[in-house]
């Protein structure tokens, strides 16, 4: 992969989850001078031990000495969520995405295995579900989001994998169950139904990918002619970035995947296998033999019930935290930062976004301790290796302004189906993600 060091530096530094693939190039690197830790007695609480929470805690532990860093999360399992699609494609086992939270907790971070039950940004305290009241000087909210399956009438998460019901997002076991349902469908054919919710969602490319993958498996098994695939977009476009939406439209047309617009799943009959969509013309029913249900997504209750969400605007209803989109600092409570899925910003509910958001937020936090101004800014960068079949993907990267921001301009075309982009997803992404958890990437 002939890439100049300058290009790699830009790509790997700022658009880091592609680093693993860049690292494969074996290009010479630039040494970094270690920075001295900032001495402080600040009390910092990080809520959440997902990708954003762990990466934040690790970076704070590296950047500060003497600070009290407490991380709150009840869950002992860590999930590598970008791997769910590979599990649901039958390429990886659920173990591929599972690890223990403990192994990623940095030295110097006090992990309290309790959930945050109440956030009081006025009194600067967090109360846990066990009743502990923890005061803080700085708070980093990295709770992730909530999958609101309950908002779909008739949906039953325990039945994922049965009777044609798939749902990749629900967890590793459900991703594997989805694979079984999809594989069964690929053997028989029929009606395949795909969709996405009308809310903000993590990795908005995932529903598109799964339609592509289902198409691919049907073709590989010689059953494409026996199946009809329909993708139900929640609005008038297939993807929020116009140039990407147009490319996906072309590919869907080429693969004979029918597209309907303004269709939002509101009800599902799991026995009769009928999905009911809310449309501008009223309810529309679609019978299915396989369906990939993507639930509405909202901020977790602890955030929704706090003063942190947006008060007005498009992110108010679902409780996303009101942060400055370039610094991730809360606009009304300057000692609070919100990173990862819970942040109320236009884009960025991906691990690739976390990779960029966390160093920015941490630098602003440390700068406040030091009494200096941070110049770090998050531009909305996010990345989606948009799988178009097993073995190929499009390396789509974009920012708040819907600009394509390719990490390897002139080398890896973002809108082309390429093997190298697949390699990045398959080989490069996970180690880079794990290095990010340790604060090392």
């Amino acid at each position, binding site marked *: *992969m*002939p890439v100049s*060091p300058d290009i*790699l*530096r830009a790509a*790997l*530094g*700022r658009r*880091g989850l592609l*680093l*693993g693939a*860049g*690292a494969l*190039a*074996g290009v010479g*690197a*630039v*040494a*970094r001078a270690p920075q001295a830790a900032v001495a402080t007695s600040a009390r910092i609480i990080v809520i959440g031990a997902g990708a954003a929470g762990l990466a934040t805690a690790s970076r704070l532990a590296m950047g500060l000495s003497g600070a009290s860093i407490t991380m709150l999360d009840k869950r002992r399992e860590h999930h590598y969520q970008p791997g769910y699609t590979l599990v649901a494609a039958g*390429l990886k086992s659920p173990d591929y995405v599972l690890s223990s939270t403990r192994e990623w907790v940095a030295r110097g971070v006090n992990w309290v295995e309790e959930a945050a039950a109440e956030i009081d940004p006025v009194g600067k305290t967090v109360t846990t579900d066990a009743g502990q009241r923890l005061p803080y000087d700085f708070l980093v909210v990295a709770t992730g989001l909530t999958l609101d399956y309950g908002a779909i009438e008739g949906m039953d998460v325990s039945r994922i994998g049965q009777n044609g019901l798939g749902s990749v997002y629900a967890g590793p076991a459900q991703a594997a169950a989805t694979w079984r349902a999809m594989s069964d469908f690929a053997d028989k054919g029929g009606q395949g139904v795909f969709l996405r919710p009308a809310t903000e969602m993590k990795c908005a490319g995932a529903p598109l990918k799964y339609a592509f993958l289902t198409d691919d498996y049907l073709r590989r098994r010689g059953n494409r002619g026996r199946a009809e695939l329909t993708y139900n977009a929640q609005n008038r476009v297939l993807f929020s970035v116009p140039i990407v939406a147009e490319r996906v439209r072309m590919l869907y047309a080429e693969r004979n995947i029918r597209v309907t617009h303004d269709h939002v799943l509101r009800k599902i009959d799991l026995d009769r296998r009928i999905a009911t969509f809310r449309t501008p013309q009223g309810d529309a029913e679609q019978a299915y033999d396989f369906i990939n249900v993507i639930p509405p997504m909202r901020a977790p209750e602890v955030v929704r019930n706090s003063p942190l969400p947006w008060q007005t605007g498009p992110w108010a209803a679902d409780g996303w935290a009101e942060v400055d989109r370039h610094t991730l600092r809360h606009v009304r409570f300057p000692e609070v930062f919100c990173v990862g899925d819970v942040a109320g910003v236009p884009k960025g509910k991906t691990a690739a976004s976390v990779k*960029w958001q966390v*160093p920015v937020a941490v630098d602003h936090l440390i700068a406040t301790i030091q009494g200096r101004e941070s110049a*770090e800014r998050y531009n909305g960068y996010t990345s989606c290796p948009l799988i178009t*079949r*097993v*073995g*190929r993907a499009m390396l789509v990267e974009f920012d708040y302004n819907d600009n394509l921001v390719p990490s390897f301009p002139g*080398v*890896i*075309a973002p809108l*082309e*189906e*390429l*093997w*190298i982009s*697949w*390699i990045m997803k*398959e*080989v*490069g992404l*996970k*180690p*880079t993600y*794990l*290095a990010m958890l*340790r604060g*090392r*990437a």
Partner: protein
Amino acid sequence: MKELDLATLVAVFQEMLGWTFWPLVALAALATLAFLRVLLRDRSLIPQRLVWAEALGVMGGVVAVLVMFTVTSSGFADLGGPIDWLLVLAIFGFGTVGTALGLYAALGLFRRRVA
């Protein structure tokens, strides 16, 4: 941090290769040192040994490409553009050179009279 540096590359490769990372680095370094030692000792490349190393090196390149396809659940049919072919060539090249270099050194050290 938001820069590319050696520490970041090492971190990613460590996560990728786990405990085998440093042994593999050591192996690569040893092979290179052994090759240089043999080269300096002989003061030239020995043609017969080089031919063997190159022939088996090509096989090493082929194996490297096949391993890459296997671990990534893909194949030649998935190559979609020039950059994909360049990547295959690069993997083949690394496999070929690495194998040839290691073999040349091994033959030079352990089968000096024969090869």
